[in-house]
């Protein structure tokens, strides 16, 4: 389509800037001079996808190579989808505006289960058959990675191959293999079989899954030489690991519009509900020098005046004090502000607080996750009420007047007492503000409580647990609301029905593929968006496909059951997860990796926290 005509259509939709491309630092290459064209797809809107660090890393990494041109693709909003269909515009990549169906690779990053229908939506808009089996040619190869790839089974029929773990090395190995097989004239089957031999690559079509009559898995059998167990890949040395010198700087507004500097991967904590805490093990840190030089390069080349330090739990970075002191020095000079998301409450010192105040005076957030000590022990959130209150008091004395607390409901073993405990903890924090002898006059305190619903995830000690039903979620919401007695506490919670859907997919198997396809054809997309999500439509679909949703979401699994992801290895062993589950029910906590190794299995990579001197 000619550019004028295209731009005319763009001007007829909301926020056209997100489809225009041409942003600062976006990469244009001569398509005649590259061997491999890679469409990097984020199955959500531009605003969300452009805020995502993983995409930025891989975009730069691929484009460093002269023979690869990687371009960005996001899911167009509904209004533009309609315009595209009316005018026969297939899904295109932002840089070249070429249709992605002609690319060598279409790659998705799967960040959350609610984006699954968007993956199908994007393939469909591209004019590419949804099912792997219906795509006979060598290209486009449809690949996917990201955290949801740790249980990729619900998407197994659509994706040709999954990358497990960190993609920096394995993605390029697969691209090289593709080049070789294409040059030799090999077909898709030849390529997939060879790719399955690369560590970190999972080709679902090379595994047969058999079921018992009750729907649980009887066996998972590899074929055509595929490995019985597929191992995830990790970057062993974070100081040598690729990091982009620059980011594409969006012209229009996005969710997180700033530079992001990764400081380490993994988490030492092992909170039992947290998938990230297990699948990214072991912890591997970057050195202060690496962080500073990467951060500086990012700000210099993007012109960003804000940088956020990214990790799962910033204050667990061993050199945090040194890092912050040196960063502050630089940021003052260059007029860059630093923001620190994901701070944990327990090792939050006064000294650190002073630095943070210095950095950015915004609200403080804490995640106690559960309302009582008993339940915090069950989930292995090693933080005590005393610590929470002390930290809040320190913060109040430092001039803060609002704190935000995150909790989960529906955790294993939870009783009504634990729910009421959330309100009580909030009340105690409010009281501690008013107990300050020198509390600021005319100022009032605000404690905001944000509640999400616990969704059991693969590769966590709670992978065996039932999720509570939607009715039960609503009852607990009501109970909590009625337990709050002061206006100083504000309460917000997530929609219970999307958590339910998430619960079905997160531990789903291949039998869900047909339901996802059916749901998409039935009009489900942008399920993470309130204005698009329809539980009724999903329930109709499940019924039509004969899917028992309770089997996936609300059923307790035996330790011996073969789980849909048991043939994938993320370092942590099932034996360890089972042990942790037993400990949870015994209300016993497990020390973090730095206090004492819990023998999770992730030391198999030979690097990281497992080998630090304790």
């Amino acid at each position, binding site marked *: 389509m000619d550019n*004028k005509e295209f*731009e*005319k259509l*763009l*001007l007829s939709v909301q926020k*056209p*800037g997100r*489809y*225009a*491309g*041409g*942003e*600062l630092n976006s990469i*244009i290459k001569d398509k005649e001079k590259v061997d491999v064209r890679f469409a990097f797809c984020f199955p959500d809107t531009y605003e969300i996808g452009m805020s995502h660090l993983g995409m930025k890393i891989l975009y730069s990494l691929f484009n460093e190579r002269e023979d690869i041109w990687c371009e960005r693709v996001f899911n167009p909003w509904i209004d533009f989808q309609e315009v595209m269909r009316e005018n026969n515009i297939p899904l295109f990549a932002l840089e070249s505006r070429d249709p992605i169906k002609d690319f060598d690779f279409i790659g998705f990053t799967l960040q959350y289960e609610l984006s699954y229908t968007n993956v199908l939506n994007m393939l469909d808009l591209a004019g590419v058959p949804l099912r792997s089996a219906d795509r006979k040619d060598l290209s486009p190869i449809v690949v996917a990675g990201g955290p949801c790839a740790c249980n990729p089974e619900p998407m197994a029929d659509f994706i040709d191959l999954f990358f497990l773990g960190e993609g920096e090395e394995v993605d390029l190995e697969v691209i090289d293999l593709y080049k070789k097989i294409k040059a030799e004239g090999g077909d898709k089957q030849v390529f997939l079989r060879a790719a399955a031999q690369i560590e970190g690559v999972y080709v679902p079509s090379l595994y047969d899954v058999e079921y018992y009559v009750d729907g649980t898995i009887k066996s998972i059998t590899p074929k055509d030489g595929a490995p019985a167990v597929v191992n995830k890949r990790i970057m062993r040395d974070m100081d040598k690991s690729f990091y982009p010198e620059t980011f594409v*700087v969006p*012209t*229009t*507004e996005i969710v997180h*519009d700033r530079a992001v500097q990764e400081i380490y991967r993994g988490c030492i904590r092992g909170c039992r509900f947290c998938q990230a805490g297990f699948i990214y093990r072991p912890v591997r840190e970057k050195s202060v020098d690496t962080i500073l030089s990467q951060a500086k390069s990012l700000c*210099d*080349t*993007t*012109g*960003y*005046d804000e940088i956020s330090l990214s990790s799962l739990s910033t204050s667990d970075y061993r050199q945090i004090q040194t890092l912050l002191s040196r960063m502050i020095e630089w940021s003052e000079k260059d*007029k860059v*502000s630093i923001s620190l998301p994901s701070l944990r409450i327990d090792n939050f010192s006064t000294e650190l607080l002073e630095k943070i105040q210095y950095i950015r*005076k915004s609200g403080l957030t804490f995640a106690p996750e559960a309302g009582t000590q008993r339940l915090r022990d069950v989930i292995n959130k090693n933080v005590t009420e005393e610590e929470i209150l002390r930290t809040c008091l320190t913060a109040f004395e430092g001039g803060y007047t609002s704190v935000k607390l995150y909790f989960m409901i529906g955790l294993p073993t939870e009783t009504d007492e634990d729910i009421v405990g959330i309100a009580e903890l909030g009340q105690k924090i409010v009281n501690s503000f008013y107990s300050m002898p020198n509390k600021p006059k005319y100022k009032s305190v605000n404690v905001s409580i944000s509640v999400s619903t616990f969704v059991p995830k693969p590769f966590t000690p709670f992978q065996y647990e039932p999720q509570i039903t939607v009715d039960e979620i609503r009852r607990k919401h009501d109970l909590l609301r009625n337990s709050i007695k002061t206006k100083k506490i504000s309460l917000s919670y997530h929609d219970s029905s999307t958590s339910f859907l998430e619960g079905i997919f997160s531990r789903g198997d291949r039998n869900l593929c047909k339901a996802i396809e059916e749901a998409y054809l039935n009009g489900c997309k942008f399920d993470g968006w309130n204005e698009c999500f329809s539980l009724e439509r999903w329930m109709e679909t499940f019924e039509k496909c004969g899917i028992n949703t309770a089997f996936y979401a609300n059923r307790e699994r035996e330790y011996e059951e073969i789980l849909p992801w048991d043939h994938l290895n993320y370092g942590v062993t099932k034996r360890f997860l089972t042990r942790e589950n037993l400990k949870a029910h015994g209300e016993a906590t497990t020390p973090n990796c730095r206090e004492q190794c819990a023998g999770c299995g992730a030391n198999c990579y030979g690097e990281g926290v497992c080998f630090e001197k304790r």
Partner: protein
Amino acid sequence: MRNVRVFFTKHGRMKFASHLDMNRLMTRIIRRSGVPIWYTEGFNQHPYITFALPLSLGFTSDYEIMDIRVIDDEFTNEQVKAALEKVFPDGLVVTAVENMVLKTGEVAFAEFAITFKEGEKDFAERLNAFLSQESILTEKKTKKGKMKEIDMAPCIKRFSISKRFSAEEGESVVLNLVLSAGGENNLNPTLLLAAFGETPYYTVCRKMIYDSAMECFK
């Protein structure tokens, strides 16, 4: 310290950048360029930048003006230009960097070239008749959010209509329009053309900005 005026053009994919987007983008571009620029004081320090006249999303422009404050007097306008040229993205081109002459409040008129794709045969004539009326009424939202009737005719300084033919684009009608700009009397060509009724698809390019004496705005 001195105020420096940057003249640039805006075309291609950059036409989808709104005024707010331009503000954000320029802040970053200028930080990247290394031009020693003055930062606003206070907690949230940011480079001081102002635009003479906002441009609507979707318009291209041959004459955009941005003012910045350079703190280092040794740093010449040529150096500013060279530094900016290095970092301007595709679609933005610096045409000149000069010391500021007029205040932005002195903007009085803007000239637009509006190109219509081939329309009905008598479109040019009807457009001519429409723009020649004594008064052209429309409703406009006041600052308080109420609708108020205004007359746009006095805001039309001058116009001319021509026809063009090119092998690529076929027949088109080009309206050259000078409208009041800046301040209270600012008139957006889209509003004017909306009052005309249905038109063929058109593109708008801002050609020039003038002061009250119809001198090019410097």
